[in-house]
């Protein structure tokens, strides 16, 4: 098992594509060429969409937004090991994974523009809407995966959270329960080195986050979070184990948040320019591109075309989101309960009358 070879207690980290683009042939996963290209195109789309979202926030056209820049591999690599029937239970910084799982760009821009309608994902997209209270989604993932297991399905559930999230009670309680119930859950910790301003070293005295899995009785592995193939390889092993009834795995994706925590944050207050520059040289897109180019799957023209295509799609979908009709009064009431209770109906009707929106009796 990879987690034996890369034991987090020894501080070892799984890497397949080195920073210089060299590939470890022994660990290189055997992936279909089209899948590799599709993954890279999704990373480009994510990068472009992310840049657009930050720009729109700066222009005051959308609200606060948490950038994913630098974490594209960390997000998509694990998700590449999933099938359409598998679940993703995200936190709030998983743009690339969501795009990979089939959440439309329009939905994402709609949500970040301040409309819950964006969370109405298409039928069959097994992704739950983003969760903002840090790590609260971890117990949900354990429950979702338990339900699959109880029905005797081979469906697995992958949940994402950050290094800061590993300090929350939900992380401990969720992983503990998953270990006890042996649920088919893959826990992906995107260790992007900061929880807003708090550096990873002050988040936990553990040498790695991956090693925490050992205490819960299941494997943990630290993976180079800017290396798509390493993340895929670790996740593939975890998914296979989960499907076979062998229980959960914790994957620590060791990466870096190039952007601010959200557009309301100013990361220059707590981290150095030199540190940021060093991580920018480890760009996950650049590394994957070298790999694809060396394999003869990618060239400059494809790069240019993909970026142009991504830009026009992003412009189009973000504009659609901005032009989307805002929620009506009925919309903000009607999903509170399956059937609106009489008292709430009265409140709706009274508010309509008070606001001069008609429909009052």
């Amino acid at each position, binding site marked *: 098992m990879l987690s034996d070879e890369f034991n987090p207690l020894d501080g070892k980290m799984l890497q397949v594509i080195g920073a210089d683009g060299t590939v470890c042939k022994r660990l290189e996963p055997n992936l279909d060429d089209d899948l590799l290209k599709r993954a890279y195109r999704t990373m480009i789309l994510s990068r472009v969409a992310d840049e657009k979202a930050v720009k729109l926030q700066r222009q005051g056209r959308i609200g606060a937004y948490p950038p994913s820049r630098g974490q594209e591999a960390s997000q998509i690599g694990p998700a590449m090991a999933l099938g359409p029937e598998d*679940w993703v*239970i995200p936190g709030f910084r998983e743009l690339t994974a969501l795009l990979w799982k089939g959440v439309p760009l329009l939905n994402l821009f709609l949500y970040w523009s301040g409309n*819950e*309608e964006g*969370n*109405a*994902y298409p039928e069959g997209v097994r992704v*739950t*809407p983003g*969760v903002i*209270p840090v790590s*609260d989604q*971890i*117990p*949900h*993932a*354990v*429950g*979702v*995966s*338990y*339900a*699959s297991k*109880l*029905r005797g399905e081979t469906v697995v559930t992958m949940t994402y959270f950050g290094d800061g999230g590993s300090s929350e*009670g*939900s992380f401990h*309680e*969720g992983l*503990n*329960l998953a270990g*006890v*119930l042996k649920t088919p859950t893959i826990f992906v910790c995107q260790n992007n080195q900061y929880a807003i301003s708090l550096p990873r070293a002050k988040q936990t005295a553990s040498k790695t986050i991956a090693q925490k899995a050992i205490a819960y009785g299941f494997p943990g592995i630290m993976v180079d979070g800017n290396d798509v193939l390493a993340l895929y390889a670790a996740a593939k092993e975890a998914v296979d184990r989960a499907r076979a009834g062998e229980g959960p795995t914790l994957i620590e994706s060791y990466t870096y948040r190039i952007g601010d925590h959200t557009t309301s944050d100013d990361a220059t207050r707590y981290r150095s320019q030199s540190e940021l520059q060093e991580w920018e040289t480890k760009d996950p897109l650049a590394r994957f591109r070298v790999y694809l180019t060396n394999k003869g799957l990618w060239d400059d023209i494809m790069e240019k075309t993909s970026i142009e295509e991504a830009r026009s799609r992003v412009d189009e979908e973000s504009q659609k989101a901005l032009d989307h009709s805002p929620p009506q009064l009925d919309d903000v009431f*009607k*999903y*509170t*309960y*399956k059937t609106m*209770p*009489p*008292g*709430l109906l009265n409140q709706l009707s009274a508010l309509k009358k008070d606001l001069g929106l008609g429909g009052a009796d």
Partner: protein
Amino acid sequence: MVTMNMVQAIGNALAVEMARDPTVVVLGEDVGIDGGVFRVTEGLYEKFGPTRVIDTPLSEACIAGASIGMAMNGLKPVAEIQFLGFSYFALDQMICHAARIRNRSRGRLEVPMVLRTPYGAGVKALEHHSESTEALYAQIPGLKVVVPATPREAKGLLISAIRDPDPVVFLEPTRNYRLIKEEVEEGDFTIPIGPARKVKDGKDVTIIGWGAMMPIIQEAASKAEADGTSIEIIDLRTLSPMDTDSIMESVKKTGRAVIVHEAPRSCGIGAEIAARICEQALLSLKAPVERVTAPDITVPLPKGEHFYYVDPDRVHRAIRRVMAF
């Protein structure tokens, strides 16, 4: 019909619904082999096995959180928290997620779960075992809060709660667990969530209460009737969403209202009921609305509990005050 106490009636409701619907699962601390600290789930583990009657680690937040996940993925979890005072660990999950996932997902996902927990004082318990903080849950849009008063009520309401498509916080009056025995329907039996129950018809004073207060209210009513005052009693039984119409119908008839709850006075459910009476029945009132509640103090340990706990005489005196006004 079989004679049952409330513990037996709730256990029976769970057994009936688990047998009928394979998606119903029970989870919580000591609910399996031990049958629950109050023995409510006794026999379920043997009947339905460890995958549907799940003994969980000591982990209230995760019991609620995992229930939410199960519910989003096709199960109907009934989670047990051993005492309401320990449900605060789970409050974040109930407020931030159970209550909101339907709204957050624009109706794509729902959380048909039940969080069962005993509540209330009057049982000479340790600290944290006597709480009556139902108002914390009742203020949250998206949650339903149900409090049964008798064994039959508990069975019918719990089966409805399990079948309800929205999350239900089901508060079981610890003091009534073994206090009352009554005839309960065998097999499938439901009482709808929402409508209040008129326990007794009367014309002079309306008393509104629920759960553990019902036997106390009934005793006070007997004393008042001996004075010649005719009492109408309403068991609210669903605190949220509240059956305002039944309250108004009664108060407009009697012109006097006494609200009884064992929770502290300020911002309790009684304040909400009184406000609604002011809004909708003010001109029918012959006396100010009375609230008989605990004072705004921490529940005392058993030696001092009698200063806190509502007794029939306090309710009786309130009835006399509204009659004398």
